[in-house]
C-alpha cells in the first residue's frame, strides 16, 4: 500500500506536465524575489493575457500534433478573423452575428486545409505553409494594410476580451472542454489512435479522414476566436497581428507540456501548463528589464531544455523513445 503511493507519486512526477509545473513554480518564486512587482494583481493580469492566446491556439495544435498533422497558418487566421468581422459588420450585420460569420469563415479555411491535405495528399506542413502566405495576402488586401478599430457595445466587447480577465476565462473554459474532448470522447480517443498507429486505426474502422479534417477545422476556428479576443482586448485590429509568432508559441506550449511531435501522445492540460510557463517567463524577464535580444536567447534555450527534458522523461516512464 505504502509503496503503491510512492510509486504513484513517482509516476506523477515523471509526467511531462509535472516537471513543467515545478519549473513554473521555481520561476514564479525567482521573479517574486527578484522583483517586488511580480506578484501584484496588475502584473498577474498581464501574465494572464500573455498566457491566454497561446493556450487557446495550443488546444487546436495539440489535437493536430497528436494525429500527426500541424497547422502553420493558424496565426494568419488569427489576424484575418477581426477584419472579416468588421467587414461583415460594415454591411449592417449586427456585431454578434458578424462574430459568428467570421468564425464560420475561419472554420471554412480549416476545412479547405483539411481537404487539400487529405484529399490531395499534400503534407499539412506544406498545405498550411502555402495558406500562411495566402491568408497574409488576403488580410492585407481586405485591410488595405491599415489597422482598424473594433466596434460593438460595451457588454459584447467586455465578454469578447476587453474585460481584464475575459481572455483567460475563455482560455480556461476552452481548455476544460478540450480536455474532456481528448480524454472522454471517442473523437479524442480516435485522434490518439490515429497518431499512435494509423494502420491499426484503419483496421479498427476509425474514420481517419473525418477526424483529421475535423481537427483542422477546430484549429482554424480557435485561431480565429483568439484573434477576435485579442482585437477586442487591444481595441484595435492590426493586419500583422498574431502571425507565426503566436502559432509557434501555441505549438511550443503543447510540446513543452508533453505533446509528442511524432503524434500519438499529448494532453491539453500539458498545453495549459506549457503556456503558463512561457507566459511567466515572458512577463518576468520583461519586468527584469532584460534586453530584447537576450530575452529571445533565454526563451529559446528554455524551450529547448524543456523539450529535451520531456523526451528523456518519457523514456524513463518506460514508454521508450517516442
Amino acid at each position, binding site marked *: 500500500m505504502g509503496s503503491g503511493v510512492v510509486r504513484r507519486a513517482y509516476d506523477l512526477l515523471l509526467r511531462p506536465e509535472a516537471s513543467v509545473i515545478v519549473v513554473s513554480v521555481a520561476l514564479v518564486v525567482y521573479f517574486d524575489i527578484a522583483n517586488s512587482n511580480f506578484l501584484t494583481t496588475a502584473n498577474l493580469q498581464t501574465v494572464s493575457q500573455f498566457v491566454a492566446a497561446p493556450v487557446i491556439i495550443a488546444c487546436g495544435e495539440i489535437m493536430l500534433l497528436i494525429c500527426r498533422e500541424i497547422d502553420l497558418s493558424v496565426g494568419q487566421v488569427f489576424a484575418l478573423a477581426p477584419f472579416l468581422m468588421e467587414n461583415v459588420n460594415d454591411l449592417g450585420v449586427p456585431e454578434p452575428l458578424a462574430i459568428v460569420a467570421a468564425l464560420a469563415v475561419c472554420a471554412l479555411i480549416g476545412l479547405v486545409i483539411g481537404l487539400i491535405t487529405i484529399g490531395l495528399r499534400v503534407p499539412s506542413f506544406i498545405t498550411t505553409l502555402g495558406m500562411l502566405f495566402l491568408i497574409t495576402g488576403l488580410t492585407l488586401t481586405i485591410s488595405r494594410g491599415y489597422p482598424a478599430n473594433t466596434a460593438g457595445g460595451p457588454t459584447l466587447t467586455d465578454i469578447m476580451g476587453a474585460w481584464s480577465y475575459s481572455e483567460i476565462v475563455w482560455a480556461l473554459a476552452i481548455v476544460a472542454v478540450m480536455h474532456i474532448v481528448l*480524454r472522454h470522447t*471517442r473523437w479524442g*480517443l480516435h485522434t*490518439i*489512435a490515429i*497518431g499512435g498507429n494509423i494502420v*491499426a*486505426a484503419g483496421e479498427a474502422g476509425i474514420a481517419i479522414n473525418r477526424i483529421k479534417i475535423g481537427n483542422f477545422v477546430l484549429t482554424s476556428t480557435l485561431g480565429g476566436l483568439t484573434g477576435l479576443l485579442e482585437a477586442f482586448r487591444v481595441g484595435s485590429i492590426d493586419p500583422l497581428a498574431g502571425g507565426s509568432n503566436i502559432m509557434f508559441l501555441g505549438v511550443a506550449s503543447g510540446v513543452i507540456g508533453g505533446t509528442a511531435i511524432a503524434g500519438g501522445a499529448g494532453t491539453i492540460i500539458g498545453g495549459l501548463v506549457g503556456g503558463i510557463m512561457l507566459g511567466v517567463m515572458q512577463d518576468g524577464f520583461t519586468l527584469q528589464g532584460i534586453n530584447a535580444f537576450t530575452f529571445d536567447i533565454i526563451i529559446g534555450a528554455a524551450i529547448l531544455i524543456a523539450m529535451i527534458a520531456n523526451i528523456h522523461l518519457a523514456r524513463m516512464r518506460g*514508454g521508450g523513445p517516442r
Partner: protein
Amino acid sequence: MSGAKTEAIRAEKLVKSFGNVTALNGVSMAVSRGETLGILGDNGAGKSTLIKILTGYHQPDAGQIFVDGEPVRFGSVDDARAHGIECVYQDLALVNGLSIYHNMFLKRELLWGGPLRLLNHRAMRRRAMEALAEIGVAVSSVDLEVGALSGGQRQAIAVARAVSTDARILLLDEPLAAMGAREARLIIDLIDRLKARGDIAIVMIAHNYAQTLEICDRVILIQHGEVTFESPAGATSAEELLDIVRREYRAARAG
C-alpha cells in the same frame, strides 16, 4: 465431415490470380467449431492470400465460401466480420500509446448514456478485465499501455479483442512468429483454452511444423497455390512434412 462436430467455414476450389501470377489454384479447406486447423507452407505458397480471401480483404476469381453451410460472398472485411470472422494479423493492429482496455474497445467504445456521449472508462475497464480473465490472460492492470507489454502479451490482447467481439471463426496469422519459448507457451495455452470452449473454429497460419502439429487438430500443406497434403495432426510428423517439402524443392531444382 468429422462426425458430431459442426462445420464452421468451408472453402471450395478457391482461385485467385494477381496479374499473371496464380496465387491460389483451386484450394479447398474446412474447419469445424472447436477445431484448430494449421495451414503450413513456404513464403509465397498462397497462405496469406487464402487468409485474405477468408477475411474479405481479397475477392476470389472462382470458388465458393460457406459459413455454417450457407454459401456467402464477402465484398469487404466488414462483410466477413458480420459473419463472425475475425483475424489477428501479424502487425497486431494495436495502438502502443493506448491502454489495454482502450485497445480492446477501439471503435466499439462503451459510452455513458446522455447527450454528451462520453466514454465510460469504468465499464470498459471492467469488461476488459472480465474478457481477459475469461480466456485466462493475466495482466497486472488493464490501464497498462500496450507498448509496455511483451510480444506474447500483446498477441494475447489481440486475440482477446478478436474473441470478445463474439467471433465464431478466428484466423491467426503467424501467432507465434518471433516469440521466445515462454511467450509462445502463453499463446499455445490460450489457443487450447479457446479450443476447449468448443464454439470457435480456429485457422492458423504458421511456419514451424513441430509447434503447429502440437497446437492444431489437423494440418494442410499449401505449395504453389495448391493443397498438396492434408492430415490429422496425430497421424503425421514434422519429419514427414519436411520430407514432402524437400522432395518438392528437389523436383523444382531438377526441373
